[in-house]
């Protein structure tokens, strides 16, 4: 691309408008990763997001690892990652006054994000169908492991059992090329994040419908279905076509793609199109074995295993970066297997400003990823690090506590 064509569009645009969700209000009753991720995406886009926590806080606050050797409720990296730009309000929902405050907050919000099972919502008098009747403009955004209907809605589950119940873990194993090994979760908390992203997507759709038609609705996302959709192509072929055989074990870069071992780690090269294969051969300085007697590039299917071995040997004596640049400058898709620390320091992500440093009163400062897209017509909302437990309790609940003051309510254990 000639330089910065896309940026021209930005420069030429009129003044930036307000942040995407400026003026919108979200109330979140959710824990751990999945639904908090969805609410975080709305919060980072500028929605005022009030997170309701129990007196001992979201369970993510207790998830290792912590920013310091000793566990601390403000410094779990999981907690910090999925709760940026939110305000924390502590309510004891075992008290009727606490439940009443939550009811009031929900009555005034645009979106209510929940990960509670149907039975728990009923106990809180927050059943989605009832909310829908009481507050026609409200969007009830529910993310549960198996959805709001059916027996499975109350099943016990964890991130592990959800990833396996969805087919998502089997999908990871199948990509390893082995048919017989144990199904395997992908790294970090990717499977859980799938549910959160699906909820954010569907909630935005409901916001569009509300802008156009004036009414809210119930958004019911099953996180296991969000995960299974990520593998919908291969699941469909397995179900409808009785195949395919699992991917053959990776043969270096010889087939359509594979993992190569370089001098300083691994690299993935994927060259399904013939011009990409030609680029890979060119990057290798046109080795003789790739050409026939007339000097024509040979079809790779006729090359056999030696080609793969030659590619492996070529890569092995070079760094990931050398192989990466050589392949990409010849239009052959490739990517080094980067450590997170290398992603943080990559020139590309620095130039794009993908990571933003946020300060926190107790945790060390850290670089937090932005959303993976840049909206060139809207101002970025100012983000903030995750809130201290209950930091906004008094501010937010004061109007709803009458005749009590926040101090009285705290003494009574209603708020934290």
């Amino acid at each position, binding site marked *: *691309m000639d330089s910065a064509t896309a940026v021209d569009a930005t420069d030429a645009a009129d003044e930036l408008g307000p942040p995407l969700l400026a003026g919108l209000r979200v109330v979140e009753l959710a824990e751990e990763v999945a639904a908090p991720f969805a609410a975080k995406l709305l919060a980072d886009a500028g929605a005022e997001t009030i997170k309701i926590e129990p007196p001992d806080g979201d369970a993510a606050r207790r998830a290792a690892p912590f920013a310091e050797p000793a566990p601390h409720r403000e410094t779990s*990296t999981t907690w910090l990652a999925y709760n940026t730009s939110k305000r924390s309000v502590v309510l004891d929902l075992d008290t009727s006054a606490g439940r009443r405050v939550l009811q009031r907050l929900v009555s005034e919000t645009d979106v209510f994000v929940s990960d509670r099972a149907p039975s728990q919502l009923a106990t809180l008098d927050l059943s989605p169908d009832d909310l829908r009747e009481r507050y026609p403009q409200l969007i009830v955004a529910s993310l549960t492991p198996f959805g709001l209907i059916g027996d499975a809605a109350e099943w016990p589950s964890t991130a592990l059992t959800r990833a396996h119940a969805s087919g998502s873990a089997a999908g990871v194993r199948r990509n390893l090329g082995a048919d017989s090994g144990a199904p395997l*979760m992908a790294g970090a908390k990717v499977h859980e994040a799938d549910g959160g*992203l699906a909820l954010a997507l569907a909630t935005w759709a409901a916001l569009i419908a509300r802008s156009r038609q004036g009414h809210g609705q119930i958004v019911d996302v099953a996180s296991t279905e969000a995960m299974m959709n990520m593998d919908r192509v291969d699941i469909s072929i397995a179900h409808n076509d009785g195949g395919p055989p699992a991917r053959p074990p990776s043969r270096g870069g010889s087939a359509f793609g594979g993992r190569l071992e370089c001098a300083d780690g691994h690299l993935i090269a994927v060259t399904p199109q013939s011009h990409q294969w030609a680029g890979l051969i060119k990057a290798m300085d046109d080795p003789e074995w790739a050409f026939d007697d007339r000097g024509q590039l040979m079809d790779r299917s006729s090359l056999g295993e030696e080609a793969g071995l030659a590619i492996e040997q070529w890569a092995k004596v070079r760094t990931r970066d050398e192989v990466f640049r050589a392949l990409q400058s010849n239009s052959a898709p490739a*990517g080094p297997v980067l450590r997170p620390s290398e992603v943080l320091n990559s020139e590309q992500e620095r130039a794009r400003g993908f990571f933003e440093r946020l300060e926190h009163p107790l945790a060390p400062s850290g670089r937090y990823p932005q959303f*993976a897209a840049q909206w060139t017509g809207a101002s970025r909302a100012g983000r903030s690090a995750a809130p201290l437990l209950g930091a906004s309790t008094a501010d937010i609940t004061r109007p709803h506590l009458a005749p009590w003051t926040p101090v009285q309510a705290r003494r009574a254990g209603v708020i934290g």
Partner: protein
Amino acid sequence: MTTTNGYEAQNGQQSGQQGLLPPAIRPGPLSGKRIIDFTWAWAGPYGAMQLALMGAELIKIESATRIDHSRQRSLAMGSFAGGVNQAPMFNEVNLNKYSIQLNLKTAGAKRVVRDLARTADGAIDNFRPGTLQKLGLGYDDLRRENPNIVMISASALGATGPERGYTGYAPTFAALSGLSYLSGEPEEPPVMMGGSIDLRAGTAAAMAMLAGLHYRERVGRGQFIDASSSEAIGMHIAEEFLHVDMLGRDGDKIGNGHRAYAPHDVFRCASMRAPDAYRDGHKGARSGWIAIACRSDAEWAAFCKCSGLDHLRDDQRFRTGLKRWKHRAELKSMIEAWTSEQAAVETASALRAAGVPAAASVWGSDVHHSENFQARGGAVSVRPPETHLREVLPPPWQLSETPAEIVSPAPRLGEDTEYVLSRMLGYDQDRIDALAREGALE
């Protein structure tokens, strides 16, 4: 042109151009929206399909001179033996769309796209940055036709930065994001991730597009959105970047394990289901896996009771959570000795009833047959042209007032060319014939 609600659009009151067919009225929150879909492969088409499932009219621009390779092959399977209208990969990420055949290298085809832009709410592409600009069909070109258009370009590494011209596929996005490094069994090489990575990137792009469309409803302006597929995976693992800054080190692979809990793993079973659940020797009967997690002494006690492995509960090695975690390898082999004589589905069901998180690890038809999936309504049947009936997964979100609906299988190549030109754009036959002579419709 902004349609405030579907019915007005259907009556043509807001189309702004007499005699033309405004965006179709379909179920879903995006009913009456028209989106030009330049995407190909997996990530872009899946993202665009989310909008189509939500009721938007997606007009996929295709050409026989540059066939979407998901009509022909997949990275995992290699070449597909059937024709371009029969590929199962293509069907899965292009449901509900229209297909118009246009060779964008011709002046006539470019004119068609510009005309479409006038009637469209948005456009989505996943070309290498700059490709559409070179064709005269970039955001600035389309915006001249329609100042309020929302356009998203989703590329491997984004449209800015020194690596903006680089290309990639799902496995390279995962590698560049940090996810591959963190995926796999401890002590094993990192995992090369597959197509699911594309669909994650597509979901992120779809969300970004919805945010742009919503913004247009609220603020009244379109915009250009620059999306990076590698960043889409990076944002799924936000805490791993904080590990680096706050703990001073990268995270590591834990596979199915957990940093505090045990048992927390998958265990081999004798079969997926009990023998009497199969007729005709179902293939899935060969093997099965069960995932089991115990997060507390209470869940551990419930597990021991339900499994009949009471002796494990009394074993000093497994008396506390910390001890179970330290001795997790021994624990695994002792539990597997039991599960290897059980059926995964029935055992998981019994464990859950006892309050223990457990699930059969499913794939393919076993996903379709799972109790939880069936309870949500199960699969939807579609019959793609030129092939057999297929059961496909519905979207994971259910919207109570504006439900999604799978109304059509993926289109044949160029299936709707005539319809788009004559009905949506009002071209007469002479004009269409002239386009064909020019080679614009190849």
